[in-house]
């Protein structure tokens, strides 16, 4: 079961890489590295959180489970929002001509 879960985790990591890769539009290598570090950090925190919550909930540590949900899920959401913003998935105002209608014309 552990190896299977590790396999699934690896698959999700690779899927994330495939999703992020075409969206990296940074100007310098440093910015590029920062995006990937942010991605790895977000993935790590999320994975740790899921594992922590899963194990603690299974054993019955109520406070540890609820604290971990707030802590790790909170961190995960914050990092995901930053990552999405950097990748241009969030908060990018559409300017005239950048939409699909403009491309068609």
């Amino acid at each position, binding site marked *: 079961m552990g190896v299977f879960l590790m396999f699934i985790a690896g698959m999700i990591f690779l899927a994330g890489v495939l999703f992020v890769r075409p969206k990296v539009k940074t100007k310098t290598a440093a910015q590029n590295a920062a995006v990937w570090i942010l991605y790895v950090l977000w993935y790590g925190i999320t994975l740790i959180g899921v*594992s922590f919550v899963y194990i603690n909930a299974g054993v019955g540590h109520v406070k540890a489970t609820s604290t971990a949900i707030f802590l790790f899920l909170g961190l995960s959401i914050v990092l995901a929002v930053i990552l999405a913003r950097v990748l241009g998935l969030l908060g990018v105002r559409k300017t005239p001509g950048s939409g699909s209608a403009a491309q068609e014309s």
Partner: protein
Amino acid sequence: MPPEKNIAARQEKQPSAMSRRNFLKAGAAAAMSAGLAGTLGAKPLAAAQTTSGAGYVKSKLHSRIDYGGATVRYVEHNDQWLGTSQILGAVKQYHEADQGFYMANRGKYTQEAQDCFYHYHFVMKHPFNNAIATFAMSLMPDQMVSGTPAAEKIPIPDPEQMTQHIKDCAYFLRADEVGVGRMPEYGYYSHKAPSQDDLLRDDLSNSVPVTERLPYVVVVMVDQHLETMLASTGYDGISAAQSMRSYHTTGVISVILADYIRKLGYNARAHHFTNYAAVMPPLTIAAGLGELSRTGDCTVHPRLGFRHKVAAVTTDMPLVPDKPIDFGLLDFCRVCAKCAENCPSEAITFDRDMVEYNGYLRWNSDFRKCTEFRVTNSEGSSCGRCMKVCPWNSKEDSWFHTAGTWIGSKGEASASLLKNIDDIFGYGDEQIEKYHWWLDWPERYGPPQH
């Protein structure tokens, strides 16, 4: 072409660098790597047949002593140190009748404590605890713990191999951990206590001097059961049963082991819960199974923490002793004090530094308060609250607890961090109801009826 459009154009033209086929290949490779990593983690049997080269002789059944996540160093056992316990002068042996429970029975504490201890009421008031303790009492007679060895000694050309064998015997008999140590002379009592009736009269004239001096000690350790501890308050009805679980098991193992050694022609005496001629903490430290904790009289194992009981076999069979261990417990206890914060009898000291006691350094708890609470506890049977809340043993085996104890064994700052994390996540002082399997008889927990 503007640079942005150039990039966009390249992205449109270039297919994803990893095709679906390659993606699956990478996944398979990752799974194989994980499998390989698991295989590398398992040691071959041949490796288990050698000495570790560090501090202990390996067993075939448990080729690696499980220290959890703690970083363990092997330290010395000499005139100045017993592991991490510093010896400042002559350590005097003491009379078995001077230990807390017998002091209660002798009337040195309160009348209530004496009443509650007599007939071992504080354990026996719960029928299940009573049943286990009654069995343990059957191991009490001297013929169970000692005897004359067989006339013919089997030759032991390789003491290391014999040490391995004795450890395997103990593991086979269901010990959770086993260690072999050089027997410290001060580990023996000066006298064995007389009968409970003599103690009740505070008459020590029938005390028997302990004259045995054997060079080695085999210490066997058994877990007190994690799930039960997670559900217990630490001082409810099941509390004494947790102790009795490990006491009777270690008792059985030690009695069989001692008899086996005698049948091989060597002297051996079992020391267990109902018949000791030695004090267990120094023997446990000598056998590399723990360090002396803040409580002052209990050792902590790197993986099991307080959650264990031990029994021992002293012998003159040629063995190779393990080395005592240092996993940073003294630094940890110095800053943690969670046991002191949670002790219902306020017996455990909050002192930052250890003090000299009987020729060695330790934290000095109030054993009178501890004993009185345990024998008169009207909310349950005895007490093991310090065991329950200790960050070293308050949880199940998992990667983050392993990481936590690794952090905790790295000095005072990291110990403080571990203790704070432990508190934030609520470990130790919670009761997990789904593991509450035992029956309670609160009407029986009061003082004995005359």
